[in-house]
């Protein structure tokens, strides 16, 4: 189908640049539609999962099993009054949701959902995604400022601090992937994970970069403001944080964008650490087991694997939201600056060492194989352990207080 459209455009005799733009635009429309549907489904899923883990039923009135609940909510939000209170900065107040919403959806154009369902196959795709995802915090800060509400302001400031802190471990851990794969191109990253042909064992999260994965996961949850890092909208303290004053469509934009960024981050994580659109058994099952080579069917399989993997992580995020209490701002910052960032620096170091040893073997990308299981763990994580120990010796006093409180805990009488 892609070929068909592509050929059609070519036959029209348009210049190549224009075709490129039209193609990217078309893909973006398709993907953002997919994204919209995914988000609408996610909102429902969140409510259902939160209901099930608390032994409730969740939405079940609108449509069969409540499937249309989010649609009804959306329609409701569309028709709600757009309230502006005196003293608000009208321009910023209106611009904020758009500034928050746009980057999260633009990211979708860069994510390879399948082999061909991809807006832009850029060689620096990973970099651009991080650049875009850090843009959305501008929207939150503006919303906090423009709302003329103290809760919003505190929420906006917290969000800015949080985004700055968590951007670093996020990028550093993704850098590990880039190092291992030798590229910033997302498609190549996926292919290099599939190159090992050991399926789930050749994906980066297990074989080479488990630490990177943990860092990436926790900082991505923080990046999208999910519990337990949902400080900018902590409802027990800040009522609703930066979107306290928003109603109607503007609120809907914030709401959608939050879920969209969670979805985008989960897809990115699957791409970076979980083999993207490949099956957990290596390659594609239709191709491998059933010997079907129909490109459209294969693409469906790819999309299915990606979506399944993504939703597993989304469900985990929902489970975490239901279980964990919220952190405090100082703890949040501390977790990032005192724990995640040193750890990811060590991680990068160890991966660099690994990479150097690998280049000696003559391969450009680090691939998972029988050899990988022995070498990286011994070399990289041995080094890592030593460096970690050194860091602890040097900066040991950082943890001292924690240790004290731990001892206090053990001495409790009740």
């Amino acid at each position, binding site marked *: 189908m892609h070929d068909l459209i592509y050929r059609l455009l070519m036959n029209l005799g348009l210049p190549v640049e224009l075709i490129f733009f039209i193609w990217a635009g078309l893909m973006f429309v398709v993907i953002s539609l997919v994204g919209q549907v995914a988000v609408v489904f996610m909102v429902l899923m969140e409510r259902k999962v*939160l209901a099930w*883990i*608390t*032994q*409730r039923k969740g939405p079940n009135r609108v449509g069969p099993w409540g499937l249309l609940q989010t649609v009804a909510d959306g329609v409701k939000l569309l028709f709600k009054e757009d309230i502006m209170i005196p003293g608000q900065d009208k321009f910023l107040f209106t611009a904020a949701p758009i500034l928050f919403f746009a980057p999260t959806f633009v990211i979708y154009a860069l994510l390879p959902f399948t082999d061909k369902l991809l807006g832009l196959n850029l060689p620096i795709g990973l970099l651009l995604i991080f650049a875009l995802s850090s843009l959305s915090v501008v929207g939150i800060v503006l919303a906090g400022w423009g709302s003329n509400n*103290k*809760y919003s*302001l*505190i929420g906006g400031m917290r969000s800015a601090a949080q985004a700055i802190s968590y951007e670093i471990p996020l990028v550093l851990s993704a850098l590990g992937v880039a190092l291992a794969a030798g590229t910033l191109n997302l498609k190549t990253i996926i292919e290099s994970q599939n190159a090992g042909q050991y399926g789930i064992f050749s994906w980066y999260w297990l074989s080479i970069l488990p630490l990177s994965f*943990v860092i990436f996961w*926790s900082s991505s949850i923080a990046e999208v403001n999910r*519990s*337990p890092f*949902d*400080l900018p909208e*902590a*409802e*027990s*303290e800040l*009522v609703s944080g930066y979107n306290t004053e928003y109603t109607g469509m503007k609120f809907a934009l914030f709401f959608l964008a939050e879920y969209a960024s969670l979805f985008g981050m989960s897809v990115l994580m699957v791409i970076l650490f979980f083999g993207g659109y490949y099956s957990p058994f290596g390659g594609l099952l239709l191709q491998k087991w059933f010997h079907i080579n129909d490109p459209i069917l294969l693409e469906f399989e790819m999309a299915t694997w990606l979506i399944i993997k993504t939703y597993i992580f989304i469900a985990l995020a929902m489970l975490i*939201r*239901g*279980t*964990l*209490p*919220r*952190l*405090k*701002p*100082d*703890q949040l910052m*501390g*977790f990032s*600056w*005192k*724990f995640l960032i040193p750890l990811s620096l060590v991680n990068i170091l160890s991966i660099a060492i690994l990479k150097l040893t690998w280049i000696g073997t003559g391969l450009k990308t680090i691939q998972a194989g029988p050899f990988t299981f022995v070498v990286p763990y011994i070399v990289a994580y041995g080094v890592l352990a030593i460096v970690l120990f050194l860091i602890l010796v040097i900066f040991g006093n*950082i*943890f001292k*207080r*924690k240790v004290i*409180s731990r001892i*206090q*805990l053990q*001495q*409790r*009488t*009740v």
Partner: protein
Amino acid sequence: MATTATNIPQQGVFLEKDIDTNDMVVNIGPQHPSTHGVLRLITTLDGEIVKNIEPVIGYLHRSKEKMAESRSLYQYQPTIDRVEYLSSFFDHYAFVSTVEAIAELEVPKRVQYIRMITMELNRITSHLLWFGTFLLDLGASSPMFYAFREREKILKLFEDLTGARMMYNYYRFGGVIADMPEGWLDKVRKVVDEFPDRLDEYEAIVTKNPIFLDRTIGIGIMSAEMALANGVTGPSLRASGIKLDLRKTNPYCSYDEVDFDVPVGNTGDCYDRYRVRFQEMRESLKIIRQAIDKIPGGDTAELNKRRAAGDETANEMDLQIYGKKINLITYKPPKGEGSTIVESPRGFLGCYIITDGSPKAYRIKWRGASFSNLSVLAPLMKGLLFPDLMAIFGSIDVILPEVDR
């Protein structure tokens, strides 16, 4: 996912500054998700640090003490439920026992045991609600639903017994309104038996969760002297290390006939307050189990069978539900005064009644435990972070109707 690099915020640690900034006054409440009612806290914030906090109360003032002047004691009684609606059996007990003391009414043993069972069940419901909302204040949502699920079962028991889920109006001067329904004790036993498993589940989710520990350990440390000086009582005081439980020290009802422990903390921080309340639920279960076994006459079905069989011992004083049937409409307690304090889930619940020989009380004074407990919030909060406010406020377990009365 472990949070490692956090520490105990200390007063003054964050206050270092050379830049000229302004403080921000945030008016938390009267409507706010975590003020548990209508409380207004005028908070002065320096960034995230709370510099000063001034509670403003009275938004829920329903003039309970004034209402007593225009109602006979019996007429006034249903409105007592609303003084503190989460554990209104305690309010009723304070009121009823004071009048009983003034009028020297005798209370049968069976009634005392029924009162004890209901009060302890009520303590559990109250602590459960506290547990749920405390965790919700800290940001965890499911524990609240689990707590409410269990609370629902106990409320159902109350509905079977009194006809209402929260506004019971069940105790009477010298007795209770009606005996337990047949088979009620078995239902209580069933709920009590399956409850420890649920408590273990809560503990698995919460008690050692690293984020929870970071949020509560060392936060809002209330020394014993500070607690006593500010009139803090109940679990919050016990968390500070003072073993003061009126059920043990000045036994009322039949608490001297059951065996239970008084959990005590040693630091007086939020975590200790959490642990003390959690242990109290287990102790309450202990009391209820013993009370069910010891209650004179046993289940009503048994008692009714004995009565139907003409057993005279089944009609003796201790097995009655009224010490003496009084005419409630025109009941006039003699002139006198009495003051009761009982150990409610939140602390000392006081009731001071002066009667002048008319059906109305001359003066009724309610001492809500939350009233004094709330006053300690301001000194506790100084120099801590804004989110600690919710942890501390949640952990001292304030209920606003009792503050404002």
